């Protein structure tokens, strides 16, 4: 038996040749080649909704022969934001990370441009709304892809019985299931009168005045309805304007009829307010109604989600999109892009909407009339107007149109609600405005 030995010279030559081959060979790892992909998804509130994401990813991974790992990250206590901050600092982490509204701009330097994904998607699914463009694009470059899971409108969720009884408003008639809204008289004036009537009847509207997003989003929509901007699109501070003054006057009247401890409310407080049966309206996506369905069915069957009241400058509704971003330091960017295309297909989007019981909202104009919203109940049709199927509202985010990096600070420091609260608690208008102006000037740091 002969034994072939490898000489030192042969070993060195073989090693050098194989190394050269590995380095010089074209690195082909298209979406159609095997590889690994790690994803950080938002951990959905709705039980079972994560399963839809897992199934869709698995479907894609099986087809593309990619090994995928998914982490579901809760947004409780800003875990997603912390994850994004840590990964951006470490330049390492997931290939795809789902991030809340303001984060694509916050980490624009670390995100892979996704124009090659977004442009075909827009052609396929229809135009995206202005807020998605504002938050997802920078100088014509798409920073991230709008994610259906978690994206939401925080419009009014009214109690049918209480609004009819105390405010004389039939919300079902105003927003009939299956047909366009008859909302011409649904203005901020009508809204305020209804708030006053419900407060007198002991069932005040549950609108927070705290520092968390629900409070800020409502304030944002109301300010925009008056055309009030603290910082304009060019980045100029525009606090001392008539529009801001009008918005503050309106808010002062509204605050007078809100619960006494609204200044301390967090994002769970309004849900609890509705479910406990103590209020006639809150501003929230249908999660409060979904919990009521389980915990207080008698409350749930009286809930109706509908459009925002209009102000002098239009009808604005708070829209909070989530995004899927691909880190520029990610290891499998092509595969990541391919998966995002798969997750944004009309079939996948409908699956997300069905799995979340209608909570998740696609950002695309052609996708606001899925069956789920028409059929969910009780009462049947309660979510029909949730995705704004007749495009009656401008979907917006508080603090826009200020440049996003400034707006993010106005948003998270809750400058709008704080200014309104200061004025409502007796501070002079000029003092409250001067305070807000000082804050905004501080946000100009680069």
């Amino acid at each position: 038996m002969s034994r072939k030995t490898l000489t030192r010279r042969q070993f060195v030559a073989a090693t050098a040749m194989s190394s050269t081959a590995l380095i010089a060979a074209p690195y082909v790892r298209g979406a159609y080649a095997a590889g690994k992909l790690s994803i950080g998804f938002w951990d959905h509130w709705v039980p079972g909704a994560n399963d839809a994401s897992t199934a869709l990813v698995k479907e894609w991974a099986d087809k593309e022969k990619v090994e995928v790992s998914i982490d579901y990250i809760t947004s409780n206590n800003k875990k997603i934001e912390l994850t994004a901050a840590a990964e951006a600092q470490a330049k390492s982490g997931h290939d795809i990370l789902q991030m809340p509204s303001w984060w694509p701009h916050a980490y624009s330097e670390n995100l892979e441009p996704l124009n090659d994904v977004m442009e075909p998607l827009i052609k396929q699914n229809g135009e995206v709304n202005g807020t998605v463009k504002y938050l997802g694009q920078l100088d014509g470059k798409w920073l991230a892809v709008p994610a259906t899971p978690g994206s939401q409108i925080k419009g009014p969720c009214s109690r049918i019985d209480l609004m009819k009884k105390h405010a004389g408003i039939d919300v079902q008639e105003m927003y009939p299931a299956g047909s366009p809204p008859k909302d011409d008289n649904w203005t901020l004036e009508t809204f305020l009168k209804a708030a006053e009537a419900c407060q007198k009847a002991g069932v005040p509207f549950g609108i927070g005045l705290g520092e968390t997003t629900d409070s800020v989003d409502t304030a944002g929509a109301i300010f925009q309805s008056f055309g009030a901007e603290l910082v304009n699109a060019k980045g100029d501070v525009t606090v001392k304007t008539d529009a801001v003054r009008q918005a503050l006057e309106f808010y002062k009247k509204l605050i007078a009829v809100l619960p006494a401890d609204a200044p301390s409310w967090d994002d769970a407080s309004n849900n609890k307010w509705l479910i406990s049966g103590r209020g006639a309206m809150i501003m929230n996506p249908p999660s409060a109604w979904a919990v009521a369905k389980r915990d207080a069915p008698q409350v749930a069957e009286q809930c109706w989600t509908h459009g925002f009241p209009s102000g002098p400058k239009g009808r604005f509704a708070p829209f909070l999109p989530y995004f899927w971003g691909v880190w520029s330091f990610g290891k499998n960017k092509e595969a990541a892009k391919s998966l995002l295309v798969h997750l944004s297909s009309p079939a996948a989007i409908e699956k997300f909407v069905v799995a979340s019981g209608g909570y998740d909202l696609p950002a695309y104009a052609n996708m606001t009339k899925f069956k789920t919203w028409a059929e969910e109940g009780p009462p049947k049709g309660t979510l029909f107007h949730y995705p704004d199927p007749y495009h009656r509202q401008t979907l917006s985010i508080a603090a826009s149109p200020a440049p996003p990096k400034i707006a993010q600070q106005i948003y998270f420091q809750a400058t709008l609600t704080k200014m309104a609260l200061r004025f409502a608690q007796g501070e002079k208008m000029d003092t409250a405005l001067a305070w807000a102006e000082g804050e905004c000037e501080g946000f100009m740091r680069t």
Partner: protein
Amino acid sequence: MADVVIEQGGVARTARPRKARSLRNMLGRKSTVAFFLTLPLILLIGLLVLYPAFYSLYLATLNKAMTKFVGLGNFTFLFKRETFWMVVKQSCIFAITAVIFKALIGFIVAHFVHNIPGKKQRKWRGMLLVPWVIPPAMSTLAWLWLFDPSYSAFNYTLSFFGVGPIPWLGETFWARFSVILVNVWYGAPFFLIMYLAALKSVPDQLYEAASIDGANWWQKMWYVTLPMMRNIIAITTLFSLIVTFANFDIVRILTSGGPLDTTHLFATWAFQVGIQSSDIPLGACVSLFMVPILAVAAIFILRDVNKRGNEA
């Protein structure tokens, strides 16, 4: 030449055992053993405490986009912010008030527990430690429900006496009261256990001698108990001051800093500025501002402890 070679070899031959011996001696020294035993901890502290500390110092010197060195620019910016000075004031109010009440309650309860006879004392000690043992994030969530606007157990109970409803977390006074209350509830057992240990170490003969001299209860407390507990009181106060100043979870869960920022502490505001508003350098500055305040407190308190140690 040969002599030299031989001499060199000889030198080499004698140096080796001496070197080995000195290495053995060094390794045999208690201090060296102690150093190697503590090395894992030193490395851990270096990795988890020193590195982040220096990294945050570095972060604090960058601009918002973290692309440029700005020196102390972030600090000078902070000093001009009204909210920053409000946070400084509030952190002091929160920490000092909470520590005083924790110390007072701990001191009083430690005396009660100290006077409970043997077996029963263990049960009480165990029960009184419960608030300190539960993770604060969890217990604070329970407090949040007690203060909750819709389901508040406190307001429900008060309603039977015709009182309330009190906006526990909605008004500045009550919100500050509530966060301090929860911190005192959580932290008082630490003082209790430390003071109890100190009380047990006071020799009975001192009290007997004081009784023979005709000292009353108050005089025994003032001239015997307190002087014997002074060092423990100082150290406990310092530890608690540091932890209370750096508190995050209680305020974050109960009020998120509201209403109108009037319950923000350094840590919660740093989180809001650094993480939520994506201004990590400014957030690092806010959290670093605790260091000089705590360093001054530590110097005063520890200097006093050293002085007494020398006197002893």
